[in-house]
Each structure stands twice: as C-alpha cells, then as structure tokens.
C-alpha cells in the first residue's frame, strides 16, 4: 500500500513537525512527543491530558486547545504512548488544580496511563482518570479486556474540556467525563482494512463484496463479516446496535464519523440515513457532527456514536472550543 511518507520509523515525528508548522497556537515537543496548548498551564484550571496510538488523527492532537484538551501524547501508530510522555504532559499543564487523564480502554493505554499516574503523583500532581469504553461491538465481561474506547472519546474530551474551561474542580470534571462516557455508545463498520506504515499492507483481507461489522479503530477485524450492505442497511444495523445498549430517554448528540478514507460526500449521505433511523425510533437529535474525527489511517468505513445529554451537557457541548479540528462558539 502506497503511503505519503518517508520511512515508517519517522512517521509520527514527521507529523508532529508538520503540526507544529501548521498550528502556532500549539506548542509541540517533537522529541518528547507531547502536544500542549500554548498558554498552559492556565491558572486555576484543571488540565486535561489524553493520548493514545497515532493513526486516529485528528484525535487527540487536533483536539488540543481552549475548551478541550490541555495536552495530547501521541504514541507510535496504533500503539499506546509511554508513561514518560504522559508525565511530561501532566507537568506541563498542571496549574495546581490537578490533571484528568482521559484514557481509551485498551490494555496498553490503561497500563501506561496507570504507570504515568503513579509517577505524576510521585511528583506531587493530583491525577484523576476517566476510562472511555463505548464500543458496543465488544462484549463486556469480567473475562475480557472490556469494551474499546472509540468515538465517545470526542464527547468526553469536548464536554469535560468545557467543564474544565469553566473552572470546575477536578472531581467535577472527572465526574462529568465519567457521566459522558456512561451516556455514550458507538458502533463501527469497515469497508476496507487498514494498512499501517510498519506493516505496509492491509492488516487483514476484506474482499470486494464484503464488509466488517463491529470494527475498532486499530485495524482489528470486526465481530462479523457480511455481504456488502447499502448505506441505509448499515445505518439501520449500526444505530440499532447502539440503541439496544444505550436506550436514551433524552436527546442525543450524534457523531457520524468517517474512518479516514470514506469521502465526506458519502458520510453526509450516511448521516441522512442515521437521522432517518433515529427519527423512526423517536430519538431526538440535539446536535450532529459529521466528519473524520476518530479515524483509523486509510480505512474506509464509518462509525456512529451517540451521547445522551441533559441541558448541562448540551451547554458544555455548545461552549466555545478552539482546536485545530473542532472550533465553534465565541
């Protein structure tokens, strides 16, 4: 698979240099792989740190800025960052009000953030953690690694980010992050497999007439392979999977997310189908976001994430945000 790269080994460092050049509002430490909003630490404000494997851009670096993350730690492609990065990020953004780690539920991310939390606390930084595990495709049980963190990460980062920006204390920001995660579910579909720079070819074989239902964002195969479906059928299936688990009684925010290689034209069309199903199910949609936000390199496909919101969460959603990938409000 052809890629717009030099060599696989420098992909993440190259991208960070490119980010630094494009976004003077961010302070990008290429050597130590930490992306920090330039005005950090903001006095009295809780710091929000997230991170994870690279390859999901704009997540997380593209969500650093006022109203969202204070810092992001990009790991190697599809590989959790190391504790050193997280400790450095925490130190850079802590104003004394403490730091919230937003961690997608993968064994690697959990272990590394846990180690980092211990080390940061050793340095006198107060750390809280929110685990994101929204992917209903994965059976959750004591005997598995549990559900993956996918699209809902954006909800948690935006809403907890707005709460922190409003000056809420660490416990409140953490509680909101947790509430958002508990109110959110996602389901993803792949039309093509992903190729990582180090492997250089698709991680699995997905023939022309088939698709994978219930995929994650790391090129893992999904739970089930089926004959290719229409946009309408995929929306029916994905929304049903989410709603079977979420059963919202209040309005939702909908994220209709592209996995990377699906054209925006198709994503908007898919959104029309998602909105149709939600309407048929009597779910009221308060806000909708359509685009490539939580991606999987060059994978074609999409995911649907819903977050049930009350008025407080909706206010936090509408609050100003000023990051490379998400911007609104004033």
């Amino acid at each position: 698979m052809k890629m717009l790269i030099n060599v696989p080994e420098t992909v993440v460092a190259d991208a960070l240099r490119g980010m630094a050049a494009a976004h003077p509002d961010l302070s990008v430490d290429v050597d130590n792989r930490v992306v920090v909003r330039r005005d950090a630490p903001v006095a009295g404000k809780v710091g929000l740190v997230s991170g994870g494997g690279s390859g999901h851009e704009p997540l997380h670096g593209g969500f650093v800025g006022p109203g969202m993350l204070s810092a992001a730690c990009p790991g190697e492609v599809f590989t959790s960052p190391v504790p050193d990065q997280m400790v450095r990020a925490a130190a850079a953004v802590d104003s004394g009000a403490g730091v919230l780690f937003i961690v997608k539920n993968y064994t690697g991310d959990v272990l590394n953030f846990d180690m980092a939390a211990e080390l940061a606390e050793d340095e006198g930084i107060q750390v809280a953690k929110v685990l994101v595990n929204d992917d209903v495709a994965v059976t959750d049980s004591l005997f598995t690694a549990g559900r993956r963190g996918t699209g809902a990460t954006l909800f948690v980062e935006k809403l907890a980010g707005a709460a922190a920006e409003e000056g809420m204390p660490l416990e409140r920001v953490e509680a909101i992050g947790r509430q958002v995660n508990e109110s959110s579910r996602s389901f993803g579909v792949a039309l093509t497999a992903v190729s990582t720079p180090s492997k250089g070819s698709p991680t699995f074989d997905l023939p022309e007439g088939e698709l994978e239902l219930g995929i994650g964002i790391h090129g893992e195969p999904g739970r089930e392979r089926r004959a290719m479906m229409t946009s309408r059928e995929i929306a029916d299936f994905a929304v049903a999977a989410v709603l079977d688990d979420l059963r919202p009684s209040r309005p939702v925010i909908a994220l209709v997310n592209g996995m990377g290689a699906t054209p925006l034209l198709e994503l908007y069309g898919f959104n029309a189908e998602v909105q149709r199903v939600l309407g048929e199910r009597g779910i009221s949609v308060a806000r909708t976001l359509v685009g490539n936000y939580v991606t999987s390199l060059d994978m074609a496909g999409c995911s649907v994430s819903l977050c049930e919101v009350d008025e407080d969460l909706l206010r936090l959603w509408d609050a100003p945000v000023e990051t490379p990938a998400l911007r609104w409000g004033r």
Partner: protein
Amino acid sequence: MAEQQSGPDLDAAFFIRWLIACAAAVERDAAHLTDLDAAIGDADHGSNLQRGFRAVAEVLTKEVPATPGAVLTLAGRQLISTVGGASGPLYGTLLRRTGKALGDAAGTDRAGLADALGAGVAAVAQLGGAKAGDKTMLDALEPAVEALSTGYAEAARAASEGAEATTPLQARKGRASYLGERSVGHQDPGATSAALLVTTLAETAEAGA
C-alpha cells in the same frame, strides 16, 4: 547439548549478552510477530519489541550495570519508556520485577533466576489481570518458569509449546479478546515473543557453557 548445571554462573555480562541476543532475535522475527498481531490484533507487536529492544541494546552499550539485577531493571525501565502498547508495561514489568527479585547480588544461578523470573511473571499476571489460558504471553511464560528449575532447554521447549498451545484458545485478555470466537485458530503474538526470549536465554546459556 552441553550438560546444564545450576552453579553460580550468571553474572551481569551474561544478562547483557542475553538481552543483546534478544534484540537480534526480535530484529529477525519482527515481521513474523507483526503478522501474528495483524491476524488478531493491531499489527504492531514486532515493531513494538523492535523499538524496545533496540533501545535496550543501545543503553547497554553506554551503561554497563554491575549486577544482574541492575541489568534487568535498567532494561525493564527502558522497555517501559520506549515500547508503549500492552507489551511495553508488561515486558518492562517482567524484567524490572525479575531484576528486583535478584537484588544486588553480583551473580546468580539457574535456580535463583527461576525464582526471580517467577516473581517477574507473577507481577505480569497481577498487572495485566490475565491467567494461564487467556491466550497471552503468560501461556508461554508460566510453563517456562516452571521448567527452568529443570533446565534451560526444558524452559525453552515449555515456552514454545505454551505459545503453540495458544492457537486453539479464545482470547480473554488484550486486544485479541475483542474478536471473541474469531480469535480462535491464531497463535498469540505475545506468547510467541515470550517463547523467543526464553529460547534466546537457553541459547545464551548454552553458548556460555
């Protein structure tokens, strides 16, 4: 095969030789490990360990710790700081805790190493919450520790058999667990790399004997 003795023959230099041999072995098998991970994971296990063991080999050319314990804790810290993913903290912890268990003695023997490795493997089990049969590196590490009291070659064989025995299992931990039944029929990449490290240990011991 050289007759194996459990005498006090394992000094810091031995562990450095082992880790450098591990780096070479990982370099050689990286693509295979990544391919195994592509089937039931995210196609990075080979490059993860490559990055980590390159860093270990590099640091050991600069710093030369005096004791086996210091060699292993340094290598473990290095893995934690460079690998990431699940295998970084797990292998890092394995080496660090094994090193800590060895204390600051100038040398150890096979029995001492077996005990210390047992502590390291227990720490991995505790950190990751997995147990034998979950289709993880533990399926190679646990039998290896047990067999190490008999001999190096036995440990290598036990680790390899343990790794191969993961193929029919359904994963219950790590990324492969997302696949449910679809994880059956593939050998676990972490168990495979664990067998590689133990095999390299046996080779190092044999070469040194």
